[in-house]
Structure formats: structure tokens, C-alpha cells
């Protein structure tokens, strides 16, 4: 398994072609109703980009993020991740990609309960086959970087929201991924903590060239990103450079 390229090239890190997602549910009469959430999304994101996805609630942002993160599969269309067709990968290969190449940050933090911050950060290393003691040593290093060294032995319920999110970011970073996917990472945090977290993301993007795709409802959070994508009812309506001019997408 080759890793995602870290050098700039003409090839995109993420390439979506005519990607659709729909859910089938049974209604009260037992009949199947299909609701389409994403409509023919075409999107290319290059290595090193910092992208913010915005849109109303229910517009399909999380659905898109889950597909980008190889947690979910599209109904039709294709998703190329650093040149590889994700649909062709086995569940083991997908697990490995999630482990090595992608870091997730969630709105609800999603730390493992009743487990210390240290062990939470170390777990992805365990799944990468690294020994527990080496994993812990490395995890402590990462916690030190995010200023959480003193909280290493705290369990999630003994940490503030901002601290939990920084633990989650440390966990996302521990395997040196080339892509960070953050679904409303500041949704549960106050504005001061939000800005701290965003500065951390900005630094990671600037200094280490990590590609960041984040979902947010707030304009001042989105302002950290270099590129803005608007979703509306499953369509990409706006895709613009954050400082540049708005470019209306072709799908309308």
C-alpha cells in the first residue's frame, strides 16, 4: 500500500466524479422511500489545500465528509483518493487508509470513554501495529505539542470541551496523515477556544502541508480556510477562493 503523495502534483488528492448519495428508508406503511442527499458532485481538492464546506443543516455536508473519509460509500459516481478508486478497495485497505492517511476530528470529539487522553491518542498507533509502550511514548509527545501534557492521564469526562478537542486532534495527527477531515470541529466550543483550535489547524496546514477539509456554519471559522465550498440541498452551489471572487458552480 503506497501512501498518499505528499508532493505537489497535477494529480488531485481528492477527486469526485458525478458522486451521488441516496438513502433508502421504510416508511410507516412499509414502503421503501428513497431520499437523495448528494447530487452529481464533481470536486477536486489538491494536496495542501485548506477547504471549508458550508451549507444549511441537512444540505449533505456530513454525508459528503463521511464519504471523503472512507467511512461511507457513494451510491453512484466515483471517488479517487490520491489516484486510487476507493470503490475498488477492500475493507482492510480502507481501514488502513483511515489509520494512516486520514485524521478525523468530530464535533462531538468522539474520544473513547473511560480511557486516558494518552491511550486515546495512542490507539491509532496500536492499530498500525506499533507496541503499546512505543505508542504511549509517541502519544505523550503529541500531547506535549498541543499543551496537554499535564492532562495525559485524564479521562475524557475529566477534560473541558476544548481540551477534548485538542486530544482528538492529537489523535488525528499521530499517524502523520496527509488529510484531516473535521466535521464542525468547533461546533461545541466557545469562540476563544474555537479560534485556538483553528489557529492550530492553520499552523498544521501552513507548516506541514497537511490538507484540511472542515465543515462549519460560522463565517469567522470559515475565514481561516483558503477555499470555500457551499452545499445546498446536495448540490455544490459555490466553490471559490476565500479571498478571490465567487465562482458559481456549473451544476445549476
Amino acid at each position, binding site marked *: 500500500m503506497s501512501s498518499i503523495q505528499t508532493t505537489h502534483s497535477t494529480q488531485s488528492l481528492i477527486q469526485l466524479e458525478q458522486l451521488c448519495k441516496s438513502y433508502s428508508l421504510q416508511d410507516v406503511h412499509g414502503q421503501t422511500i428513497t431520499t437523495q442527499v448528494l447530487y452529481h458532485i464533481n470536486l477536486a481538492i489538491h494536496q495542501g489545500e485548506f477547504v471549508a464546506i458550508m451549507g444549511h443543516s441537512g444540505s449533505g455536508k456530513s454525508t459528503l465528509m463521511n464519504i471523503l473519509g472512507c467511512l461511507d460509500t457513494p451510491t453512484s459516481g466515483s471517488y479517487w483518493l490520491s489516484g486510487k478508486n476507493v470503490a475498488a478497495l477492500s475493507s482492510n485497505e480502507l481501514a488502513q487508509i483511515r489509520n494512516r492517511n486520514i485524521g478525523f476530528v468530530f464535533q462531538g470529539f468522539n*474520544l473513547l470513554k473511560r480511557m486516558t487522553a494518552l491511550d486515546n491518542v495512542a490507539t491509532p498507533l496500536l492499530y498500525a501495529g506499533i507496541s*503499546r509502550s512505543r505508542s504511549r511514548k509517541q502519544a505523550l509527545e503529541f500531547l506535549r505539542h498541543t499543551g496537554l501534557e499535564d492532562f495525559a492521564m485524564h479521562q475524557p469526562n475529566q477534560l473541558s470541551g476544548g481540551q477534548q478537542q485538542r486530544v482528538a486532534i492529537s489523535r488525528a495527527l499521530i499517524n502523520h496523515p496527509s488529510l484531516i477531515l473535521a466535521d464542525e470541529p468547533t461546533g461545541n466550543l466557545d469562540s476563544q477556544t474555537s479560534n485556538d483550535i483553528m489557529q492550530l489547524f492553520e499552523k498544521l496546514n501552513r507548516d506541514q502541508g497537511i490538507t484540511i477539509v472542515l465543515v462549519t456554519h460560522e463565517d469567522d471559522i470559515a475565514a481561516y480556510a483558503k477555499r470555500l465550498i457551499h452545499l445546498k440541498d446536495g448540490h455544490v452551489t459555490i466553490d471559490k477562493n476565500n479571498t478571490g471572487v465567487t465562482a458559481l458552480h456549473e451544476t445549476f
Partner: protein
Amino acid sequence: MNLSAIFGEALRALRQNRLRTGLTMLGMIIGVAAVVLMLSIGQGARTKINETIAAMGSNLLLVVPGATSSGGFSFGSGSVRTLTINDANAIAELSSVRSTAPVTSGTVQLNYTTKNWNTLITGTTPEYFDVGNWAMESGTAFTESEVRSAARVVVLGSITAKSLFGDEEPVGKTVRITNRPFLVVGVLMAKGQSLTGRDQDDNVFVPISTSERQITGNQFPGSIRYMLVQGASAEEMDLAEIEITQLLRQRHRIPNGKDNDFTVRNLTAIADVATDAAKVMSIVLGAIASVSLLVGGIGIMNIMLVSVTERTREIGIRMAIGANQRAILTQFLLEAMMICIMGGLIGLLIGIGGAWLVSQVADMLIVITLGMIGLAFLFSSAVGIFFGFYPAQKAASLKPVDALRYE
């Protein structure tokens, strides 16, 4: 993720839910303890019966006077006196027979110094000790010539010897039987109870001639109570039975069409029945105990299913940070197996303790073999794998996105 790391994760999960882990384990503990206890009781019974059968002697036939009664057989009731010492001697000549031992019996009082003791007396020949598989604690059996001369010699059963002599050595001493002096020539090794539960060690043995002429007396001289016949080999037992029957009918001049005035019983066949009964008993006991193990296993499956549902989100998070299906499957399977194996080991100890207690309280022979311990261990891990697999499989096959969204 390597196995030891997954093992650590599984152990952590079990520790986080101590009470639940303990309660689930209890099902396993009870199951395995019951299996071990039941197996050891069953095995004990079988060992006991085998020992008794071995002590009884091999390839034995019993010939008693009187026709076969419908309710089984009895040791010749006093009224029928159709078997004689001569019959026994004639049977001993048959090619399918190794030797015979004629027996008369009665009850007597023994005196030694100031002690006296009432017991059974058996008049017989030296062959008796060989056929009945009796070993000597000290001294020897009486001899053929002592039988011919109706000598006043006696061989004591172990309980009788103990009762009269205590720690004193009986051989060479003289006891009085119905006020006549008898020289003690031998003491038998203890044998314990017979298959029918009769104590075999409280009795004395004298030459059959001595018994008839000097002790019990005999209305019908030469008649005997019963005889033990040892066949030449296990294969020839049926032949021996037929030959004995033919010979005795001929000797007793029983016309064709009339019933035998004696009964031939194959003691080995009776022993086989007892062995089979013990085997069936241990199987039934084991089966009953297995049911509790099964119930324990179902309990584990139930808890593991609940656990998978409860921890769906955790599974989702683990998948999002890189756990593959095998890692999830292994973790949940290991959790189930650890409950089973730990429960199994504790159950094993409790089972062994219980077996010891039973052996103390009920004075029963309890046998615990290494094989049983291995079996209990194997069985409990098998239960763990069998009942843990489905929940583990369920956990591993969750879609990451569904698991993550699960509330």
C-alpha cells in the same frame, strides 16, 4: 494491531464492567464446576466398581443349587442340597474350566484370650483364594493336605483379625471356634464391599472338611452351599457354562425336558452390567452438568450482544481511527473467551473443592483426572468461541458510518 495489544483492549473492556463481567463469568463458573463435580463423581463410581470387579476375580461362574427363580438368584436356600463336593471336583476336570472352589457356610463365635467375635465361617478348598483373587496380608492359605486331614487351621478376614488381635500378629496364634482350638495360618488383605454391597472382610475360612465335620455339621454330608468356578479363559465362558450344565444334568440324572436342579451364573456378565450402569450414570451426570454450561454460554452470548449494541459508537470510533474488521472481531471474541477461560479456571477450582468436600462428607470415592481438567478447559474455551463468535462477527460487520452515527 497485534494480538497482545488487542488482548490489552479486551482486558480493559472487561475491567471497565467488573460487575457485569463477574456475573457473566458466574454462569461459566457454575457450569464448569458442575461438570467437573459430576464427572469426578461418575469417574469415582466407575473406578470403585472396577476395583471391586478386579478384586472379585476374573472369568468367574457361580453354581448354586436349586432351579432358576424368576426374581434372579439367591445363594442356595438351606432346603436345597443338590450340589456336592464331588460335583465340584468333576467340573474342575472340564477343559473349559481352570479350577473350582466348593463353599459351605455358617455363623460362629470366635474367642481369643478374653475377646470374642461373631462372624461368618466359610468352609472351602485352597483354590478359593486363588479363584476369588484373595491376597494374603500375612501367613498362607491352608493346604490341600490340611483339607484332606480336616486340620484345625483358619484364615482370618482382615476385619475379623483386627477385631480379635488389634495390632498383634495373628499368624501362629490359636483362636477358639465353637470352643475348639484352631491355628491361625493366614490373614487376608482387605477387599472392601462386594458389588452387592456386602462387606467381604469380616469372615473366617477353614478347610471344607473341617467345617463339615467339626463346626457347622451337615445333614447331607458332601453337599455344598455353592461353588465358584473359574473358566479357562474369557472367550470360553459360554462354553464353560454349557459344559457345566451338561455335566451336572448327567451327574444328577435329570431326564430331558425336566428343569435343572442347579443354576449357573456368569459373574463377569453381572460385573459388565454394573460397569455399564456406572458408565450410563456418569454420562447422565455429565449431560446434566453440560446443560448448565450451555446456559452459561448462552448468558455470555446474551451479554456480548448487549455489549456490542451498547458499544456501537465505540466500535465506530475504533473503525474511524483505523481498526479493521479482524481487529474488532478479535477484540470481542477475546473478551468472550477471557470470560469463559477465567470462569472455567475458577469453576475448575470450585469443582475440585466441591468434589473433595463430597468425598469427605459422603465418604464417596472421587476421581479427578488430568483429562477432566483439560476437558473442562477445552470446553469452556470452546463455549467462548462458539457463543462469542456471533456477537463479535456482528460488531465487526458494522458499517463505520452507521456505527459512528449510532446513538
